[in-house]
């Protein structure tokens, strides 16, 4: 089958279903998602925003070492999780805490990494959420492998593989898209283009017409979507998941969004961007936008809004409790999971530490 190259290029403008004020766009490329889907997403958005802000506060209180917030990108986070079916997999990055939570993972477990008790704090197999990846773009290849394994066994799994705009520059991004394409692996590559890789603006990262234009070079259809428009994200990502599941191979989706806060709390964003640039994105906020639409269409009222906020508050409260617990680290853990059976060397080394601890009286 020779694919028509034109079908692989993204639309000129990102797909949008509702404008900044939450008004449905005329003649949009996709139908508006069903009200229930939008409400489900809205609840998750509210919770997501609350998680971001709570985590940020926990850093200031010294409960977390650092937090890469997705404040402003919650629509991407929520939609990426919501379009997946039960057996599907999600591959999040360090910034995708909210996506992992939207997929069912306990926020306290997600944040173990940043609290410092252990590396990955949740069981990836429970919700089919891979450990959050830090080495950029490396996880995209794992996503291809998961998808290819499922395909070889004839399972209908689709894998949502997330990365940022900066990560598209890594060699592993290239290899992942190409492998997925050649093996027709059912992977949706979802790039959250938030305009920055730490301090480096998009223009220093790529001079392509768009990041979605990278798809055609692999024979993969690329699509662009407004990353602050939850409805458009649900539609575009949902379609991409459907296509991948139907055997059409990998899909590439670029969402245009913005990182409202610094890279992490440790970062000083004033060194590389102006306040007014940030301010311009405030009005495009994904939460208020969807809220406006839902209210306008009588799908949301103050009571429901309050209920959502209360749910979010409960999550935040659980985070505060869960993350304030001081876990006494057990050094035996250091040696327990290096191999299925510790090597003789590790047995010796663990004994040495156990002895030290014993001598210090359990400290």
């Amino acid at each position, binding site marked *: 089958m020779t694919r028509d190259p034109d079908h692989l290029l993204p639309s000129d403008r990102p797909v949008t279903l509702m404008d900044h004020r939450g008004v449905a766009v005329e003649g949009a490329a996709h139908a508006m998602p069903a009200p229930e889907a939008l409400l489900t997403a809205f609840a998750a958005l509210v919770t997501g925003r609350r998680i971001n802000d709570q985590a940020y506060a926990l850093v200031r209180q010294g409960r977390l070492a650092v937090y890469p917030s997705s404040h402003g990108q919650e629509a991407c986070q929520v939609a990426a999780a919501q379009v997946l079916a039960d057996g599907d997999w999600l591959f999040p990055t360090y910034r995708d805490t909210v996506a992992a939570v939207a997929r069912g993972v306990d926020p306290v477990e997600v944040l173990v990494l940043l609290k410092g008790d252990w*590396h*990955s704090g949740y069981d990836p197999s429970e919700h089919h959420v891979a*450990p959050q990846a830090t080495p950029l773009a490396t996880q995209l290849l794992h996503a291809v*492998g998961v998808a290819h394994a499922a395909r070889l066994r004839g399972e209908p799994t689709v894998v949502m593989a997330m990365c940022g705009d900066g990560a598209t520059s890594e*060699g592993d991004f290239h290899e992942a898209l190409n*492998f997925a394409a050649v093996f027709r692996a059912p992977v949706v590559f979802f790039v959250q283009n938030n305009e920055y890789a730490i301090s480096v603006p998009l223009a220093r990262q790529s001079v392509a017409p768009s990041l979605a234009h990278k798809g055609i070079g692999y024979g993969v259809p690329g699509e662009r979507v407004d990353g602050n428009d939850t409805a458009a994200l649900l539609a575009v990502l949902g379609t991409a998941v459907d296509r991948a599941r139907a055997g059409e191979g990998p899909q590439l989706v670029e969402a245009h969004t913005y990182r409202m806060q610094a890279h992490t709390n440790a970062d000083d964003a004033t060194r590389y961007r102006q306040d007014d640039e940030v301010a311009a994105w405030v009005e495009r906020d994904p939460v208020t936008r969807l809220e406006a639409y839902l209210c306008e269409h009588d799908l949301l009222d103050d009571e429901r809004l309050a209920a959502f906020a209360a749910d979010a508050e409960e999550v935040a409260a659980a985070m505060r409790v869960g993350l304030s617990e001081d876990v006494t680290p057990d050094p035996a853990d250091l040696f327990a999971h290096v191999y299925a059976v510790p*090597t*003789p*060397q590790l047995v010796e080394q663990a004994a040495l530490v156990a002895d030290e601890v014993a001598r210090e009286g359990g400290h």
Partner: protein
Amino acid sequence: MPQFEKLTMAQALNRALRDAMADDPSVVMFGEDVGPLGGVFRITDGLTAELGEDRCFDTPLAESGIVGMAVGMAMNGMRPVVEMQFDAFAYPAFEQIVSHVAKMRNRTRGRVTLPMVIRVPYAGGIGGVEHHCDSSESYYAHTPGLHVVAPSTAADAYTLLRAAIASPDPVVFLEPKKLYWSKEEVELDADRPGIGTAAVRREGTDATLIAYGPSVPVALEAAEVAAQEGRSLQVVDLRSIVPFDDATVCDAVRSTGRAVVVAEATGFASVSSEIVARVTERCFHSLAAPIRRVVGFDIPFPPPKLEHFQLPGVDRVLDAVDDLQWEDS
């Protein structure tokens, strides 16, 4: 009932793959040119034809891609075996190997494990041009979370590869290129002692030669020559670099009181340094002389016409043995 057959190491490896794949449908083999061609060293010869394209297949030309995809497949219930075409061509996969393959079990407290094998045609002695003869074991051995093995016989090639594929943990499997075509009677037995055990290949009382992979035949030949000259050299074949068999190696060295480590790889900060360090740490008062190393010089691997200067040879091993401060010399 164990089966015996006369096989080259290449054939023994092929048999190991074939038998493992027949036994377990989750074992898959992939890499560059491993499909219809059967790999540039023919280790995967016939696998695609016999077991189908889903079980043994060619990938696009990208080593990080190969290893990264294997990680994902291992996460999702498969036991991938991948081939790196030559030692130096595994380097593009280094980040995947160090940051993921080696760490996944640990990162997830054992919830995600990676039963996978990275096969690496390895080391010199075949007159290969630059980038085709690296001895890369030290990079892997230094990386916690990987098992690293290197067979020196066809029988071990079979046994260790079966063990590697059966292992719940990732194994870097180093195949000495120059031994691919050495033929011997092989017991096709997956249940002989596997990863983590060294073997005393030759008994001896005067000094111990410690070697692995391509250097084992050199050590054995040196011991043979030494025997003719009246010196009795013991030869230990590590087989497994990680885990390291301290017990067998240290028992051997204590029994002779003298040792020489033989390895092709560049010596500085290497597996050979580790052997000297750990054996000395453990056997210091049994040693009559410092442990000597006959190892690669600290230079890039030489061009073909000069490689014999770099490879540890029998003479150099015997010189090192002579240097072990014999009272009567």
